[in-house]
Every structure is written in structure tokens, then in C-alpha cells.
């Protein structure tokens, strides 16, 4: 599903975000990407959906060679991925239903399909009571759920989550992780960046640890120490 070989990312001005990172993630895995702030977690994820371009090495995602992928093919790659950011990035003037259906509209579904699929996604993220609420009427956890539902609109093979629990309290964080595990069990590969040690240590999943842009450990049932 994901394969990185000797990948480095150096920004203009010389600051190194990633240095010689090599790893691979198989289909169906749930993997945590951990490390302190500035360790390169977001850069790692952004390389996967070609928001950033690797300076060195090769990146392969969902059978696509991302390194040599021309700019015009980036949308094709992204349609196979779901992207969840720390800020839910919801459209303030639209309800929960509209925020999710917006994604389906963009993907070209017709109105009947949009209606049906939006309802399914709302069921999945358990937001029945907030369907017609606007983002400012939702809690942080609910907003993250909407953002996850929207990311799932394209039936992605791989879900990339960049600190989705970063702004949430422990209880809500657990609920979000539980939801992501449910999505993973349904067949979607999940890679979640986080610096929340309590979640990582409790869930006993594979953990990739970054420090100063280097991959310092890769453990099957890792812990965040």
C-alpha cells in the first residue's frame, strides 16, 4: 500500500524535514506515526499525497509511483486516498449533511446517490443527531467525525489522518480512534499521525516513530515512550 525507499525531504533554505526514511505499510494495516512536534509526521503524510515532493528517494502509494507522478495525475492519486487534517476544515455555511454531500458532489455522484451515500456515512460516524447542525453548533469530536466522513466519500483505499485527535480531550480521542479502527476493520488501510502517547500505548498497533526527520523505530505493537 505504501513503500518509501531512502526518502529525504529538504525545504528551500536547507531545513531537513525527512532524512533517508525507508518503510512499507501493507494493505489493511492500522499504523500510528508518532513523534514530537516538528519530527516530520505531517511532512511524511504530505509526501504520500504529493502535497510535498520528495527531494530524494522513491515513494509508492496505492500502486502509484508518487515520485515520478506528473502534476496533472495528482488528483487521480488523491481520489484513492482519504485525508483527515488536525483542523476539520469544515465549510462554516453548510450543515453536517451538506459538508459530507459536498465531497460527493465534487466526486460527480448524482443527487440520489449523494443522498443515499451521505446517509450511510452519517450512520458510520454516528452523527444522526447532528445532521442539520452547522459546524459552530458541533463539538470538536463531532467536527472531526464530519471530516472523517467526508474523507471516506471516495471509498479510499488508504486513510491518512494528521493528528485528528490533536484538539480533543482523551474521551473524545478514544471515540475517534475507535471509529478509525472500525473503518480499518472494514478494509481501509489507516495511517494516523499523533503525539498522543495514551492512545498509542493503549491500542497496541504498529508504530512508526520519527525523530528529527529520521525513522528511529518501527515496532509491531509499539509504545510511545
Amino acid at each position, binding site marked *: 500500500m505504501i513503500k518509501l525507499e531512502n526518502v529525504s525531504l529538504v525545504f528551500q533554505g536547507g531545513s531537513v524535514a525527512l532524512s533517508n526514511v525507508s518503510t512499507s505499510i501493507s494493505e489493511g494495516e492500522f499504523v500510528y506515526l508518532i513523534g514530537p512536534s516538528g519530527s516530520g509526521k505531517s511532512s511524511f503524510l504530505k509526501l504520500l*499525497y504529493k502535497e510535498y515532493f520528495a527531494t530524494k528517494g522513491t515513494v509508492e502509494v496505492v500502486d502509484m509511483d508518487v515520485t515520478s507522478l506528473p502534476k*496533472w495525475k495528482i*488528483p*487521480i*492519486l*488523491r*481520489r*484513492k*486516498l482519504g*485525508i483527515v487534517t488536525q483542523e476539520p*476544515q469544515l*465549510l462554516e455555511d453548510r450543515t453536517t449533511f451538506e459538508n459530507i454531500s*459536498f*465531497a460527493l*458532489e*465534487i*466526486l*460527480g*455522484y*448524482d*443527487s440520489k446517490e449523494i443522498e443515499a451515500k451521505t446517509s450511510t456515512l452519517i450512520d458510520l460516524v454516528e452523527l444522526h443527531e447532528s445532521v442539520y447542525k452547522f459546524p459552530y453548533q458541533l463539538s470538536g469530536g463531532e467536527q472531526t467525525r464530519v471530516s472523517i466522513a*467526508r*474523507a471516506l*466519500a*471516495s471509498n479510499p483505499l488508504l486513510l491518512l489522518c494528521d493528528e485528528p485527535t490533536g484538539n480533543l480531550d482523551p474521551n473524545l480521542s478514544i471515540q475517534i480512534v475507535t471509529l478509525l479502527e472500525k473503518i480499518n476493520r472494514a478494509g481501509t488501510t489507516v495511517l494516523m499521525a499523533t503525539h498522543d502517547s495514551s492512545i498509542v500505548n493503549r491500542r497496541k498497533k504498529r508504530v512508526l516513530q520519527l525523530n528529527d526527520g529520521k525513522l528511529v523505530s518501527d515496532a509491531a505493537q509499539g509504545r510511545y515512550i
Partner: protein
Amino acid sequence: MNKLSYVIKNTFINMRRNPLLVVATMLAVLVSSFLVFTTLSGRAVVENNTSRWQNGVHVVIFLDDRVTTTAHKQLQESLESYPEVRMVDYFSKSEATEEFKFLFKDQPELVQEVDFEILPSSLRVNLNDPADYQLIIERMEGNPAVKEIRASGEAIDRLLSLTNTLVISASVFAVLIAFAAFILIINTLRLTAYAKRREIKIMKNLGASSTYIRLPFIFEAIFESFVGTSIAIGLGWAVIQYSKGSVIAESIFDITISDAYLINLTLGLILSSILFGLVASFIGIRKALNE
């Protein structure tokens, strides 16, 4: 089909965000297109008229009253021998009197006051190339039989020179306003794109292509440009129709422009407006897409 409805819906949502800017843009396009349309139409009218005048008499040589019939015939034969000359007509004093009476038939007081004895006989010269009028003037100057020489070419040259100055001034003005319209479109789109930056970011993450994200902006720019130009063209046609029955048309100019010319001008302006909108939208949205 659903994607198209998204694009159309969003085009109008975008325009609703900055209605004043949209109106300002359309007005700027309208003024610029109207100037282009009227300037080019006006030039065509002047060119039609001058060409018509150029097909008539090019040089009039007024003869001295003392000149004998033999002398005027010699002068006429000598003129006819020049390769530049196509035809020479003798116009006697009595013919000049009749012509004067005809031209001023609406002003009987003037006709009554004039002493027709002062009207000279003349030789009216038609040239193969109207631009050669200066050669005839040079050859006839100093001839004792010649009282005065008048060339229509001088007046036409002055008129064409004035027309060209007006065309250049109007074109410069039109280009300046078109540039202002261009900047306005870019600015309107940038404001809209800024207001929609979150939506654009989401669309990019969902895998929407750049073209798809751009389309509502392209449609908006083309729409604004097209509406402004269409109104300008409508006004231009109205001005031409009005001018045909105006005092100018009855006294100085024959306001005739071929339909083919006007249709070509209309199509050219509409195509230019579409191109104009396309280029402006590409520049306007480029930054928002690259962020």
C-alpha cells in the same frame, strides 16, 4: 451532468459574493467594448465616404475669366495628355451658375444676392490615382490661364488624418479601460478564491482536478466579459441605426456599413471577450490553486 450543475451553481454563488465588483467589471468591459465597436465602425464609415469622394472629381482648376476658348481647350488637351489623368470635363460659367442654383435651392435669398458673373469656368479633373493630385497642382501652378486650383485630396487627407488621430486616441483609451477591466476581473476572482480557500483546499484533497476547480471561476470571468461586450455591441448597433437618420447622415456622411462588416466585428468582439475572460481567470485563480 452533476459536475456541470455544480460548476454552474458555483459560478453564480461566486458572483453573488461580490456583486458590486461584478457590476464594475461588466461596466468596464462594456465601455471598452463600446469604444472599440464605435471606433472601428466610425472608421469604416469614414473610409466608405472618402473612397466614394475619391471616385469623384479630384482636382478643380478654376480658369481666369479672360481666358479664351482656344486657351482652355489647349489646357484641357494638355491635361488629358498626362498619364495620371483619366478624364477632364469643362464646366462653363453658365453650368457653374446652374450648379450653384441647384446646390443652394433651399436658400433662395442667397441665390438672389449672388452675382453669378463672379463664378468662374473650370476644368474638373478625374485622376487614375487620387493620391496624384499634388502632381497636377505642381504642373498647373503659374499657368496664366489658371485662376485657382482646388484638390479634394487635401480635404480627404485632412479628414483621414483627423480620423486616424481619433481612432488612435479612442484605441488607446479602449486599451486602458480594457486593462482596467482585466485587473478588475482578476481582482474579483482573487477575492472570491480567497473567500473559498477552504473549499478549494478540500476539493484538492478530494482529488478534484485543477480544471474542475477553475471552471466556476472561468465561467464567471467569461460571463462578466460576455455580458459587458454584448451590451456594448447592442448599444453600438443602436447608435449606428440612430446615426443613419441623423443630421450628420443627411448633410455630411453617408452612414452605411455593410452587414458583413458589422457581423464580423460583432463576432470578433464576442470571441475576444471570451478569450479575455479565459486569460483573466487563469491569472486570477493561479495563485489560489498553487497554495
